[in-house]
Structure formats: structure tokens, C-alpha cells
């Protein structure tokens, strides 16, 4: 089968159209977020979910509604016909479709090494985690710090480690691990805030919706738009966990200070490194990470603005526009 014929086959059309459908959905969602000034991370996350879930179903559903949707006649009258771009040849020699599929291939590689492998490794390691830690109840300082936090549904362990360590594992009963080094860096209130944030992650990981969302994300492993938007969803999830932590501790400034101490101070050592591609990429990643942390700190310090409408009108309107517009994107 010729490559151009593959693009017109059902699997080829699915790959191409799911990419364009997610791009259009992302643009429409962005317009909705800007127009309604949506800052509530729960509402933002709900809107961004559309970009992940919609392209999984859009092509088969549209084809079921109209089997002639991929035909030559429909394409000629469509709002946007992707094949016009994919069939174009740069300098009359190199078809653009090769570049397009190279981008999809690179996205799949990034997904595999940066998302799937770490998650599988984390799940595997969590299963038989034999980390020698002291239970929080047996550690006087931590027991005191966590005593009035309603975190019974997770086990808290203190690791004897001078480094700054804080992470949680999920499963039937989630666990939160913090190191003795962390207890030296953060004060009592900050430790409470950090533990409450991790507890929020443990609680949220039990929601079946998030598991389903990850499965949809896996199905779109080749889609660069989904790759970017999924990362935004993860960032929004951090903000949701910040909000849960604040609701438990009633102290947003402690969480902001903890974030500052844990993530912003230690990055200063990266200045003045030799300029190599690898270092530059790491710097870029650190910079983007720093921006996220700073935005979370600013949000916590300014006060969380989650009041007002729940964004349902914007969500419904955005879904309708995404559904209608994408029907004419082939």
C-alpha cells in the first residue's frame, strides 16, 4: 500500500484526524478559558480533559454518522482538509507527510521514555517497596506534626536520609515518605503542608476517572497535542492538591514556603554550566518546572480564587463547538 493511500485508509485517517481534532479542541478550550477567565484548577482540568478524550472517539463517531466523511467530495467542501497539507511537497521533492509522521514518531518515543516507562517502574517499585522507614506514629516530631491532620487513609514513613525526600506511593493503601533531611529543612507548619499535599495525591489517585484518563492518554501516545495538554492537566492536578492541602491545614503560606524551599533554592547550583545540547535541554526543563512552581506559589500567596460559577456553561458551549467544528475537519 502506498503511503498516501495509508493516509486515506481508516487507521491512517484515525491517526491524522485525531491529531487535528485535538488541536482544534485545544484551541477552542483555550479561547473558553481566556474568555471566561477560568482560574479554578478543577474547571480548567475538566476543560482540558476534552482535548484528551475527544480525539479517541471523534473519528469513529463521525464516520458512523456519515460514512462518506472522508470522501473526495466531502474533503473538497470541508472546513479544513488535512490531506492538502500532507500531500504537499517541499521544493517539489519532500512530501510534508513524512515530516508530520516524524513528529508523531518522536512524540511516541517521548511518551514511552518520559511517561510510560517511569510510571511502570514506579508501579513496579511501589509493589514490593522495602524502604526501611519509621512509621510516623513512632517518630516523635512527625507524630506531633501530623497528629491533627486527617490523613488516616495513608501510612506515613520517615526515612533516615540527609537528603530532601518527599514522595507518595499509591495502591490499596497509599504511603507518604519523607526524609529526616526534609525535617531539617522545613519547619513544622511547612512539613504539615507538604504532607497534606502528598495526602491529596494519594486520595486523588483512587479516583477511577484518573485511571480512565490515563488509559485515554495511552491510546493517544502518538499525539503531540495530547502530550502537551496532558502535562497541563498534571500541573492543574498539582494545584488541586494544593487546594486540598490548604483546606486541611488552613495555611496557604506554609505550603508556599515549603514549595519555595524544596524546589526553588536547590536549582541555583545549575548556573554557569558548560553549554551543551543536553545541558541546555535540562536548563529549559528546569526553567519550565520553575515557572510552574512559581505560579503555584503566587497562587497560594494571592489567595485561591475558586469562587464563582463552576464553568459548566463554558464547558458545554466548548464541547458543542468542538463537536460541530471537528466534523468538518478531515
Amino acid at each position: 500500500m502506498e503511503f498516501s493511500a495509508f493516509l486515506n485508509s481508516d487507521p491512517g485517517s484515525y491517526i491524522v484526524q485525531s491529531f487535528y481534532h485535538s488541536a482544534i479542541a485545544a484551541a477552542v478550550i483555550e479561547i473558553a478559558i481566556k474568555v471566561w477567565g477560568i482560574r479554578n484548577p478543577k474547571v480548567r482540568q475538566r476543560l482540558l480533559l476534552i482535548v484528551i478524550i475527544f480525539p479517541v472517539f471523534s473519528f469513529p463517531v463521525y464516520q458512523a454518522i456519515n460514512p462518506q466523511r472522508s470522501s473526495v467530495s466531502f474533503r473538497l467542501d470541508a472546513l479544513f482538509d488535512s490531506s492538502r497539507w500532507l500531500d504537499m511537497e517541499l521544493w517539489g521533492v519532500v512530501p510534508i507527510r513524512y515530516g508530520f509522521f516524524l513528529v508523531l514518531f518522536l512524540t511516541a518515543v517521548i511518551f514511552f521514555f518520559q511517561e510510560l516507562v517511569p510510571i511502570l517502574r514506579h508501579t513496579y517499585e511501589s509493589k514490593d517497596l522495602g524502604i526501611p522507614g519509621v512509621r510516623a506514629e513512632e517518630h516523635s516530631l512527625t507524630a506531633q506534626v501530623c497528629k491533627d491532620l486527617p490523613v488516616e487513609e495513608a501510612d506515613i514513613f520517615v526515612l533516615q536520609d540527609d537528603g530532601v525526600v518527599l514522595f507518595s506511593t499509591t495502591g490499596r493503601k497509599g504511603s507518604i515518605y519523607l526524609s529526616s533531611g526534609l525535617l531539617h529543612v522545613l519547619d513544622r507548619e511547612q512539613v504539615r503542608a507538604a504532607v497534606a499535599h502528598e495526602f491529596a495525591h494519594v486520595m486523588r489517585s483512587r479516583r477511577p476517572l484518573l485511571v480512565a484518563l490515563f488509559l485515554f492518554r495511552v491510546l493517544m501516545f502518538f499525539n503531540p497535542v495530547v502530550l502537551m495538554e496532558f502535562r497541563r492537566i498534571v500541573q492543574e492536578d498539582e494545584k488541586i492538591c494544593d487546594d486540598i492541602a490548604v483546606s486541611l491545614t488552613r495555611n496557604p503560606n506554609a505550603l508556599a514556603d515549603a514549595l519555595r524551599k524544596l524546589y526553588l533554592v536547590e536549582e541555583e547550583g545549575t548556573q554557569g554550566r558548560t553549554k551543551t545540547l543536553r545541558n541546555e535541554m535540562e536548563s529549559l526543563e528546569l526553567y519550565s518546572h520553575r515557572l510552574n512552581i512559581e505560579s503555584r506559589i503566587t497562587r497560594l500567596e494571592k489567595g485561591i480564587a475558586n469562587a464563582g460559577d463552576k464553568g459548566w456553561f463554558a464547558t458545554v458551549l466548548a464541547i458543542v463547538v468542538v463537536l460541530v467544528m471537528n466534523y468538518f475537519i478531515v
Partner: protein
Amino acid sequence: MREKILRVLAFAAGVGILVFLLKFFNWLPLMVQTDSMRGYKDLEEARAALQIRTILVPSYFPHHLNWPPSRILAQRKPFSAVVMEFEKMGSKNTMLLISQSTSEDFLPEEKIKFAQVKENVAYSLKGREAFLRVGVCQRNEPCSGISWKEGESRIHVLAISTPFELIKIAESMLR
């Protein structure tokens, strides 16, 4: 309420800009790549624009069909293809569809689509090895199709008619 209306208008404006951009980016490749799929007024225009030397046209033509073709679509890239649609006189229904393409997989049969194929047989069309399909189309009308290889091109002729008339049309396309 006023604020809500203003937000909806702003959203509509944003979507309007997006639609405009999509239309622009849909039009741009047509300007850059002149040999991509598009409609032509007549066969001469298509032949001249795309430098397709041979376009097979029937010399036998049933009376109830309109001449010239109601729609001519053609492209040279990614592969050469010409599609001609013929309507029934006094109506907008496509009754005959002829396509010729250098791609084996190209068959724009959306206007005349078989709902059920009753017979699929090999047929010798003026010495060419052809495949004849006979069946019914979507509105339960009898329809038939024939395809064969002519040089580098695959020719498909589909018609809402009996196979006898279809074969007459197809034979008239060959010398």
C-alpha cells in the same frame, strides 16, 4: 446577564477567528501546490493544468444523462487522478461516475455506492482483463461497476444502470 452575553460574544468572536484561520490554511496549499485535487470547469482545463495526456471519455452516452460532466475533479499529486460525475437530465442525481487514477486504491465511489454486490465476475473488455460488479445501490436501484487497467491507470466506471448499458459505455471509452 450583560456580562454573560458579552462573554458569549467574545467566545463567538474567538471561534470565528479560528474558523477564518482554518479556511485560510485550507486555501493556502491550493495556491502553493497547483496540482492538488480541485474542481475544473471542463476536461480541457484539467488536461492543460495538470498535463495529463490521456483522459478516457465515453463516445457512447445514454440519452437520459447530461453532458458535459456535472463535476470534474483532478489532481496530479500525490498521484494522478481524474473523476467525472454525470447527472440525470433534469435532476441532480449522479448516475454515472468515471475515475481514472495511477493509484490502485483510489475509488471515489461515494456518489454511487453499492449497498449489495450480487455478482462479481471477470470480464473481457475489448481484450482487457476487467472486473464487473452487479448489484443494488443505496436506494435499491440496480447499479453496476467495471474496472480495468489501462496503461498506468486504473479505470473505474460506476453507473446506476444495468450491466449491459455500463459495458456499452465502458467499451466506447476504448478503441
